[in-house]
């Protein structure tokens, strides 16, 4: 009898695992592919002093912006937070700590963390403020900065489809940081739009193997927001 990974809801999936002061990862780029229901459940849990590793900080009333409004986040590790006024206010008031990482460095730190690689070298950021205090080394005539792998106590990810084993498939650009984050925690919780029977996902198409996923929550409704709606006119027939 296999372990049951399927939980009845986001709150149930977080119950007993989330604690004050923890480090969490949340997938997504902007509002695309973010684990909204799990973020809402973190809000309901009331856990405080959290560190969040996430590319962005959401907007004021969506994504991680929800947890900034309730002041549950103490520190963010992100590459870009430009769309969130709450963030800016708390940061400039000294209430929130931010560690900016170049986006590719952030992605690779998470990938490395999940793969058991404690550190790696990248040319990104050499000679800039983000290299300060970090070891540097020359390889083949070029200078590189040492960056550390990242892991989290809990990783929150959003996927398109899952099977009961926790194999995950993503949809279009909603994939982004989710697969690396799924690998970078021993408590990865996936909220999914569709839960399909075992065998229905083609093994060749699975992006995140179930070994990386501890808990699965099937969303009862999916509310996706668009940050920048850009369209073109249809030519008149």
């Amino acid at each position, binding site marked *: 009898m296999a372990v049951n990974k399927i939980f009845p809801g986001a709150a149930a999936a977080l119950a007993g695992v989330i604690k004050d002061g923890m480090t969490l990862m949340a997938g997504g*780029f*902007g*509002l*695309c*592919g973010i684990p909204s229901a799990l973020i809402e459940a973190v809000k309901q849990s009331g856990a405080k002093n959290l560190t969040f590793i996430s*590319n962005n900080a959401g907007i004021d009333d969506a994504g991680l912006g929800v947890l900034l409004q309730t002041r549950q986040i103490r520190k963010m590790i*992100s*590459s*870009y*937070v*430009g*769309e969130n006024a709450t963030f*800016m206010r708390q*940061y*400039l008031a000294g209430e929130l700590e*931010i560690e*900016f990482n*170049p*986006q*590719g*460095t*952030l*992605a*690779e730190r*998470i*990938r490395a963390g999940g793969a058991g690689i404690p550190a790696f070298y*990248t*040319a*990104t*950021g*050499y*000679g*800039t*403020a*983000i290299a300060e205090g970090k070891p540097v080394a020359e390889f083949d005539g070029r200078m590189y900065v040492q960056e550390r792998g990242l892991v989290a106590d809990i990783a929150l990810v959003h996927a*398109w489809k899952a099977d009961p084993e926790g194999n995950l498939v*993503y*949809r*279009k*650009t*909603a*994939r*982004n*940081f*989710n*697969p*690396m984050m799924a690998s970078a925690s021993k408590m990865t919780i996936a909220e999914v739009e569709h839960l399909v029977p075992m065998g229905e996902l083609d093994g060749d198409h699975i*992006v995140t193997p179930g070994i990386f996923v501890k808990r699965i929550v099937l969303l009862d409704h999916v509310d*996706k*927001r*668009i*940050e*920048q*709606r*850009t*369209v*073109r*006119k*249809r030519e008149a027939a």
Partner: protein
Amino acid sequence: MAWTQDQMAARAARELQDGFYVNLGIGIPTLVANHIPAGIDVQLHSENGMLGIGPFPFEGDEDADLINAGKQTVTALPTTSFMDSAASFAMVRGGHIDISILGALQVAENGDLANWMIPGKMVKGMGGAMDLVAGVGRVVVLMEHTAGGKPKLLHRCTLPLTGKAVVSLVVTELGVFAIRPGGVVLVDMAPGVTIAELREKTEADFTVDEALKQAA
């Protein structure tokens, strides 16, 4: 007369070659997609995990799961592939992207670039800019020539750097400057702009390309 933003974008688009994989930054650089010369076929890379960006969707066809790095809704093409952020930046860091066209706050005459932070004022983050300028061999900057009347092409950047000695070419509304190992060379000017005007509005030292001297 100064170039318009579209003319700047068209000038930058002349740097593209057939078969190039191209990353366009947010703002004026995005306009480059509208000016790709005839006969040149390129694939646009979006660092959020998409290679092969199509045009904006028709009204009603917007898909929240299909956006570019500016978080704008886009469409896929027959060539499109989707990948996670680590694979997307492997393309960047690994030198697989041929050209990166992006905006700047300041550029120095040695190719240093500042475009991510104004201390005490702008704390948005660098996004993928530091990875792009470090990983892509040819970096083209599209920017206004001055900000509040002050030159942006400088001896040395005064703002925090995005990358050291990374810029290859700077296109402004007034002219085009190549940043070479020997220094900055003015290689093109908007119609009606004079070298004297450019000297006045540029802090960086520059020489003038021989062909341009003859034409002027």
